[in-house]
């Protein structure tokens, strides 16, 4: 090699290899230290999170989710010195069988949970024994006093008290973020009304079980503000013990389905709004619609009918024929404006956006199926948003769930209102669509089972055949009813939907419409203010007064202190003792026992295990 050339210097390679080995040792040492001599201060090790998770309230300040401190107890089997003594003491205090503890000890693990969420005093009792190998972890517990109520909406929390679904997941940061000097997160007030929610769930669950449907869903919303008053999905779960479940989905935002005939109202709205509806024309329905060899069946042979009857009978042939003259692009634009194919942006995780095919994909078949709500898919929340635009006479409004958020000390409150309000159809057009929808619930209409006494109800039924990627499935239906109350000047909209109902009837008018009526009947006093338009809901009257018999002890179990005092003051004045915190777990006299004045009740409150 010549002198002015550099040479491959193997020594430098050795230096770098040496450095790598040194770093390997350093990293190993550091990992060892982190694993066995953790920098986390000893007094911090028990605590997973010292911030108290905020409370979730409904719109009338009823607690839907609250947090409290508990301790969970775990074993490190290899560190236990006196097995017999440890097992004996633990089984005594925790009321567990000795055998079950031994079973846990024999699992070849470093760390086994023994019992979760013990009350503080029990945990203290064990802590005082200073048993080696028995460790504690502070595990705040989330408690849902109403059990299953609004479960799919609220979601639940995991072992570490972190939100895993629903509101709990979406607002994890807000609920746990330390904002002030107090060690607590923000409180969230939902637009949900627990009473309305309860009524919706009650009726829906009954139908869900009776029809043996795969899934069921209901939404109730305020048409002018976009506020969601209730939102329920079945199957549901108990968020206090959610782990045995597999179905946590909030169908209102995750489920996309072919809306079927409920979709006809948006086609109708588009036709009216574009001035393309010939009201004097009559449509002949031979029981099917056929164009260029493509055939769509109708629900019946409707014969000659005007457009009002087409909607009233939910006639496929009629609506397809009426829509036929509308250019594809025009119809597409109208559906886009109604919000189909785009997320509503409601503040919940995992919202789907449905499918609205691009106009260049609309072949002759899609042109026939879209007007009857097939070949497109939408989420229930999209449907409600679009329907509300008709109900409020023309505005597309974002649905929302959060009424306000307050700091833990209540000093800082942030209110949420809807700012965006976009006019998508004219007031006259919307009013006209409502007129058509009113005919649906009249005698002879497909939705006549939704009619409620003298009240004007407007709505539309929907029955769609389910499909998979191979095609439509015979005998599998989805039935729905989408309706407004009051029918001409709506205040609330209600959507009811059942997936694969079994039994004699499967049509939306037969099974979904009655649920609509049943729910409406229960909540009508809460949501109805009379024929004034642009009104807000009535203030706090949701506290439904249950009239109790004066000589039979009512069942207070599970009720909150507030509720109990309310009932006692109203109906059972006397000398009562209420002690403890939380919810009634014991009462004297027992529920149903004979009582007489002067009343003297003893009620013990606690947080149930």
């Amino acid at each position, binding site marked *: 090699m010549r002198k002015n050339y*550099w040479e491959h210097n193997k020594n430098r390679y050795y230096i770098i290899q040496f450095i*790598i080995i040194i770093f390997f040792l350093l*990293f190993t040492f550091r990992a060892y230290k*982190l694993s066995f001599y*953790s*920098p986390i201060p000893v007094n911090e090790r028990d605590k997973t999170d010292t911030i108290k998770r905020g409370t979730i309230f409904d719109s009338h300040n009823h607690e839907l989710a609250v947090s409290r401190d508990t301790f969970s107890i775990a074993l490190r089997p290899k560190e236990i010195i006196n097995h017999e003594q440890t097992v004996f003491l633990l089984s005594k205090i925790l009321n567990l069988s000795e055998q079950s503890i031994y079973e846990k000890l024999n699992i070849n693990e470093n760390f086994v949970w023994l019992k979760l969420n013990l009350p503080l005093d029990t945990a203290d009792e064990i802590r005082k024994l200073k048993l080696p190998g028995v460790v504690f972890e502070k595990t705040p517990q989330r408690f849902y006093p109403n059990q299953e109520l609004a479960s799919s909406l609220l979601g639940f929390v995991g072992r*570490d008290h972190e939100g895993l679904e629903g509101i709990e997941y979406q607002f994890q940061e807000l609920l746990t973020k330390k904002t002030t000097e107090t060690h607590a997160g923000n409180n969230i007030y939902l637009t949900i009304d627990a009473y309305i929610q309860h009524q919706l769930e009650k009726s829906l669950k009954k139908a869900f079980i009776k029809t043996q449907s795969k899934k069921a869903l209901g939404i109730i919303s305020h048409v002018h503000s976009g506020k969601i008053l209730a939102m329920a999905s079945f199957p549901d779960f108990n968020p206090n013990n959610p782990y045995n479940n597999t179905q946590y989905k909030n169908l209102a935002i995750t489920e996309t389905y072919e809306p079927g005939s409920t979709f006809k109202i948006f086609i109708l709205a588009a036709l009216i709004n574009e001035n393309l509806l010939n009201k004097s024309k009559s449509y002949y329905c031979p029981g099917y619609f056929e164009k260029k060899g493509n055939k769509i069946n109708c629900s019946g042979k409707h014969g000659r009918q005007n457009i009002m009857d087409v909607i009233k009978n939910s006639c496929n042939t009629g609506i397809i024929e009426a829509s036929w003259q509308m250019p594809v692009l025009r119809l597409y634009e109208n559906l886009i404006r109604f919000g189909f194919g785009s997320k509503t942006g409601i503040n919940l995780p995992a919202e789907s956006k449905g499918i609205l095919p691009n106009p260049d994909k609309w072949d002759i078949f899609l042109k026939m199926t879209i007007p009857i709500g097939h070949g497109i898919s939408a989420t229930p929340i999209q449907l409600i948003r679009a329907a509300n635009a008709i109900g409020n006479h023309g505005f597309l409004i974002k649905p929302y769930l959060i009424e306000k958020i307050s700091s833990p000390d209540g000093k800082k409150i942030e209110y949420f209102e809807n700012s965006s309000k976009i006019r998508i159809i004219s007031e006259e057009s919307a009013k006209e669509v409502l007129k058509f929808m009113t005919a649906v619930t009249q005698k002879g209409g497909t939705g006549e089972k939704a009619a409620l006494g003298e009240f004007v109800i407007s709505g539309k039924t929907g029955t769609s055949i389910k499909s998979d990627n191979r095609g439509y499935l015979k005998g599998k239906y989805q039935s729905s009813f989408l309706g407004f109350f009051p029918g001409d000047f709506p205040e609330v909209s209600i959507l009811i939907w059942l997936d694969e109902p079994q039994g004699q009837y499967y049509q939306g008018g037969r099974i979904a419409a009655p649920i609509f009526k049943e729910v409406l009947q229960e909540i009508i006093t809460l949501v109805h203010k009379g024929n004034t338009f642009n009104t807000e809901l009535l203030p706090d009257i949701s506290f439904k007064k249950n009239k109790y018999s004066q000589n039979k002890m009512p069942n207070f179990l599970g009720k909150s202190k507030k509720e109990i005092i309310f009932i006692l003051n109203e109906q059972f004045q006397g000398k009562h003792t209420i002690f403890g915190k939380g919810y009634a777990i014991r009462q004297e006299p027992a529920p149903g026992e004979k009582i007489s004045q002067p009343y003297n009740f003893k009620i013990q409150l606690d947080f149930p295990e």
Partner: protein
Amino acid sequence: MDFQSFKTSLKNSETNYLYFTIILIITIFGLNILLASSSFLASQAHGDAYYYFKKQVIYALIAVIILIIFIQIPYTFWYHAAWPIYLISILLLALVFLPYIGKSAGGAYRWIQIGPLTLQPSDLAKFSVILLLSRIFSNTQKSGNTKIAASLIIIFLPVSLIGLEPDYGTAIHLVIAAFLLLFLTDFPLSAMGIVFITSLPAIYLSIRKVTYIWERLSAYLDPYKYRYERAYQLIASYRSFLAGGTWGKGLGEGIRRHNLQARHTDFIAAIVAEDLGFAGIFLLLLLYFSFAAYGLFKLSQVENNFGRLLGTGILILFITQTMMNLAVVFGVMPTTGINLPLFSYGGTSILTYMSILGIVLNIMRDS
């Protein structure tokens, strides 16, 4: 250089299957951890526990195919491609700042959007710098001032573009890797010292002036003061180690994963710590470091200057990135946003590393 002679010798030589196997073991190990760490997040965010896992398996499969292809490409090809690749990567780094093409996330411009693909040009830039330096120094003529100046420009042009994005972690990584490579050439140590001393004020200023560097640094220095904000991740990581103990809680059993935010990307090693304990972390360290040390030993025997430098440079990129990532998870360095090669979730990263490791394997045939 006589390419013809070692082209023939290449045909006779075998691929180093041991090395190839280690790459596969690391990848499969990584996929397992990724599944354990991401399933919960995936089922929450996408309704499918396997969402990230499936995507990553597809990336990994494509990456292995690319690895096998790259093993077949004679590394002399890269000698000729060095300049074009360098210029393209500089162009791409500049494109990041253009509207419509560049994609910003969290105030940083690090990605380019081409149709459905999101590219991170800094991945290519790191390789292109190593490649071009290898080419320049493969010429064994003693380094003159021109060569020294040229190599500094070659390094600092992309480094400053990456710093502007801003992505300081990657910029620092590239500087460290490039200078380690120069350390193996005749680049004068005195020049390196001068570069270091002159850049000290710039380093100091950027630490004090750029708030987020300062925030991360202060979080690192006093984690408990910032436990709910800046140091949240760090403490969550510490807790993973504490919970994991010697053997861990079992794959997929740990509960801390819910607290870690970048659990399937930058902090994936913390999941190893919790689920597989100190034993798992030791295995991980052993795999990565022996991979690098053994590779460097093999490459030091390569006679061809270009091949030796290129292969070494790639391995240096690999191991320094590994160290920077682990240093963050182990709490010995402030958060940098650098992922763990072959382990973390992300398509570009695994594709890039598999391709360049393919080059290393091709070069090793020559040792």
